[in-house]
């Protein structure tokens, strides 16, 4: 068995799915964000694996930008969570249900 990009893709598909399930079943917004981070990492793995397979730098460039986006997302998301938590001592997303839907 030789290491091929396909290994990366398969692994990232698994991590992506786990992250997606996590976003769906967890109620704590912070853990939901973490699961989103998992998904982003899965994407990064895909990019790197593909870049390696295609022998092309672009995939790695994409990872760089994804990292920036992830950082920005966390900043914004956590700011909102902090703002919300300051008003109410709640940790789970479905406790926050003033709005129906």
């Amino acid at each position, binding site marked *: 068995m030789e*290491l*091929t990009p*396909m*290994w*990366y893709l398969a*692994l990232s*598909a*698994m*991590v992506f*799915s*786990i992250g*997606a*399930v996590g976003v769906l*079943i*967890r*109620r*704590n917004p*912070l*853990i939901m*964000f973490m*699961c989103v*981070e*998992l998904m982003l*990492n899965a994407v*990064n*793995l895909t990019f*790197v694996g593909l*870049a*390696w*397979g*295609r*022998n*092309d*730098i*672009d995939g*790695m*460039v994409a*990872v*760089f*930008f994804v990292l*920036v*986006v992830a*950082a920005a997302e*966390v*900043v914004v998301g*956590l*700011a909102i*969570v902090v*703002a919300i*938590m300051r*008003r*109410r001592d*709640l*940790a*789970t997303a*479905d406790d*926050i*249900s*003033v709005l*129906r839907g």
Partner: protein
Amino acid sequence: MQEFVFLVAAIIVLAGSVGVLLAKNPVHAALFLIQTLFGVAVLFLIVEAHFLAAIQVIVYAGAIVILFLFVIMLLGVDKSEDLSVDPIVGQRPLAFLSGGAILGLLLALLNTVDPIEPLPSADPARALDRTDASGQRVADVNQLAETIFGEHVLAFEITGLLLTVAVVGAVVMARKISGDLQPVPESALAASVGLEETSDDDAEPADAGEGDA
């Protein structure tokens, strides 16, 4: 050897992500997340993406997860979540089902793909194994720099915009606000003290995951 390292890293990554999925305590989840991120960094190293591995650790582990933990500690929301309660009846099986479906679909799609090889049309200037004049292989960080500040310079500029937005947003959200707050609606208060009726009038409760794939 590479295969062995990959497998070890993959196990670390998978165990970490399952840990995030199942950890009751947010702090533990964050620790599992670090584990995953670290594994991913190792996977980056295997394919000689040194720079990415380093910034993966610096940005993710050094900043993002720290921020998570910081917020958890600051807000004191590190109470454990009772995972045995399904928030919405049937949501969890459904979520697992859709997760499984995503995975299945992706794997099935990947199965149809030809081996991923360098494309004949690929630009040699962008090849990862490019060598410089002296025949030495160009480090990935140099290549990344050339590409980011060359071909992708606009994207790089946009990240500046993006980060500005994030900073402005964070400042707005964090700023102390003067004046009276509008009351938190009854339903929210009721929910926080765990009154029974909240489960009734929330026939369709807030659910972040309803619109999944």
